[in-house]
């Protein structure tokens, strides 16, 4: 009669499994590779490895004229390239001290807010896709197409515009643009309620995102997280309000902040909800800007040869993903000595190893989706 076999737990060797999520993975929003140590479903260590989409943007800039860099800034954050252009133009105008006519400021605000809506639609759509809801993604992409059609009428391109130049914009508004944008806004407002009804207040979606990946405000500031992800953690910080540039001081809008409505402050649901509210704010801004757009020549202040004086500038701009910074050193020639682009997604991504440890794999995907990263601008 053999005695019951006694299994000594210490002999049962369980070890962590090392998994490579990426660089080809459906939900890493681009070529990001996450080296994950998991034991069972729970993720114990994450090491993001980036650089698969590195196209030496900064090295290129050291061989290009200042006006030739604009199409290259497009290609960094290809989902919100109007913002990249505008950020670059803002930095150069500060360096060269160019005063831009008010009509250009209003056009830049309208176009910037349309681009913010389009970028948020992609961000929220793919976030829903990561959680498993496929229909909201297709609805959001359908609405984004209309914005891209508007941009196509404006400057001919749908994704990479090369539209906002140093000192102005490349083309004036076509005559039916304002009416068409009005049409789009009236069409788009009820659609946002549909997204809420289908996804935002869906019990499974709340179950999957509330209280998941909580980002405390001080950790966010310490990691340099900016944009909707920072506002999701309750920090009321928006460059359009705090460092008012362009025509934003004349337009009134408010800055949505995460309040922990469905879970705790700073969880995935809050970041999602802040982006959803921001889209409504953008609609409000566009409404006001369309009514009060002044007249004037858009290429009045565009210099023939862009030659900034010797010196350096660091300027920040609020893109859809966060705060983009351009540090430009120039020595009077027509090519920059050094152009550093501080990309928001670069810092937003670095926070994932801090907040996603201890959660399960499906939550890791949800947290990554809620941070809304674009690999083009991370790898530059």
């Amino acid at each position: 009669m053999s005695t019951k076999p006694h299994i000594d737990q210490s002999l049962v060797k369980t070890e962590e499994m090392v998994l490579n999520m990426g660089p080809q993975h459906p939900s890493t929003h681009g070529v990001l590779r996450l080296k994950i140590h998991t034991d069972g479903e729970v993720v114990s260590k994450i090491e993001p490895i980036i650089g698969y989409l590195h196209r030496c943007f900064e090295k290129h800039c050291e061989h290009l004229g200042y006006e030739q860099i604009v199409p290259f800034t497009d290609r960094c954050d290809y989902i919100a390239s109007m913002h990249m252009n505008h950020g670059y133009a803002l930095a150069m105008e500060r360096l060269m001290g160019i005063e831009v006519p008010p009509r250009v400021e209003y056009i830049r605000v309208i176009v910037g807010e349309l681009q913010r809506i389009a970028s948020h639609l992609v961000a929220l759509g793919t976030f829903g896709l990561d959680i498993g809801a496929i229909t909201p993604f297709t609805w959001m992409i359908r609405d984004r197409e209309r914005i891209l059609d508007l941009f196509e009428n404006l400057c001919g391109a749908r994704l990479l515009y090369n539209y906002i130049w140093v000192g102005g914009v490349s083309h004036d508004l076509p005559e039916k643009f304002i009416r068409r944008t009005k049409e789009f806004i009236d069409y788009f407002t009820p659609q946002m309620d549909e997204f809420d009804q289908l996804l935002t207040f869906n019990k499974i979606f709340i179950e999957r995102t509330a209280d998941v990946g909580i980002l405390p405000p001080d950790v966010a500031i310490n990691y340099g997280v900016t944009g909707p992800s920072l506002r999701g953690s309750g920090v009321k910080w928006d460059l359009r309000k705090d460092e008012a540039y362009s025509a934003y001081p004349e337009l009134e809008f408010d800055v949505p902040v995460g309040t922990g409505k469905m879970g705790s402050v700073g969880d995935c649901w809050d970041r999602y909800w802040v982006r959803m509210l921001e889209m409504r704010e953008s609609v409000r801004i566009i409404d006001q800007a369309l009514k009060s757009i002044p007249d004037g020549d858009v290429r009045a202040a565009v210099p023939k040869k862009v030659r900034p004086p010797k010196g350096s500038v660091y300027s920040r701009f609020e893109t859809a993903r966060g705060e983009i910074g351009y540090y430009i050193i120039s020595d009077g020639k027509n090519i920059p000595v050094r152009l550093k682009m501080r990309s928001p997604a670069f810092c937003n991504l670095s926070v994932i190893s801090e907040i996603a440890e201890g959660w399960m794999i499906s939550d890791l995907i949800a947290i990554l989706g809620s941070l809304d990263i674009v690999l083009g601008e991370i790898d530059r």
Partner: protein
Amino acid sequence: MSEYFANIFYGLKSFAEGLQLTMRHFRNRKDLVATLQYPHEKWPIEDRHIGFPLEEYNIIRSRLNVDIDDCIGCLQCERACPVDCIKIETIKPPKGSDFDCGITSNGTKMKMLVARFSIDMTECMFCNLCTFPCPEDCIYMVGGPNSSKHEIEYEYASRDRESLIFQFANPSESDVLAVGGENYLRAKAGLPPLAPEVPVKPVETVSTATEKPTPTAGEPDVKVLNGITDRMVRATAKKAFMAAARGGSDLAAIAKSIQAALEEAGKFTDEAKAVLDSLAVTQTPTPVTVNEVSSEAKPDIKTLNVLEDKMVRGMAKKIFMAESRGGKSASEMVDAILAGLKEADKLTPETEAVVRQLAPEVPVSTPKPSAPVTDFNVKVLNGIEDRMTRGLAKKAFMAAQREGKSASEIIQTVQTALSEADKLTDDVKTLLLSIGGDKA
């Protein structure tokens, strides 16, 4: 316990809402469908959603196109392109030759013949920066507002890379020869440039015969420094040469200053020394032999590229490859291609001319003597020392010349422009007077 049930009821309520919403989309799909069935419905379609009709397009970003007869070869678009996908080669008729390069559609007279204008659409990033600086608006993207000249053509995909390189300029044989570009043709056909009996103006850049008040015997020619193979060394040498030449010193002084510049930059290779010695010794600029001696004239398949008709070109190339694999000589190759084309009755006289080109006989045309005479053009202002003022002066000069003013009026506008920018120092004024003076 109640929170447990509250959860369940909230869940059921939100499920019901969601389901009801997707059912609504399922039911009235007629007006909500957003798909564009590509092969049947072409973009842009009427206002089903915010699609725009064609003529409302302010600008379009599809393929680049060039009206070559409007192009004055100013290379502005080539300079504006961030990815260098535009290549233009122009041939300038030698001074005083009566060759008329033609008039563009909005009236500016063309000063050179555009021999090659090719855009590599695989490199182009559609940023549209090239269409803005063009003075004649002859480079534009097809479709949209330009659809009167070219309807939207966004389906130009192709199987091989070569056909994505669009060649816009196709100058006829006679024009190129008339402009004195036979060196250009020979370079294209991979042959060594002609050994000039009489100093022929080299093809690309206008020789910088510096207009010094006291022209020395044989003006030193910067082309001599082409002999130095290393690009960096040659660049510093040339810079030193230009500075010295402008300073009016003679040949030996120029050689010394170049040598100094090279040594100071630590680039004084022995090859540079050899070239400098040859410069100092011989007065007349002897063209140094081309760097790499091109091998015996091998017939090149590229010459068949000129054939217009795709079918003919394909067949000719096929036979050419067959023959060259067989190791035949050029003339046998030509006969074989001609025979092949004849029995496929595709042989037209001009295709025969192109095929004949494969085995060119010794060119018989003699280069026309060029009469160096200093006519009145912008080079006159090279004398001004300071780079900024010279730039300003030249700009004013070109502007005035384009309006077709007479010589003295041009000098007048240059003078006013300089005085406005308070750059009109007295030595500049004397120089202007000396040029303006002996003309009046």
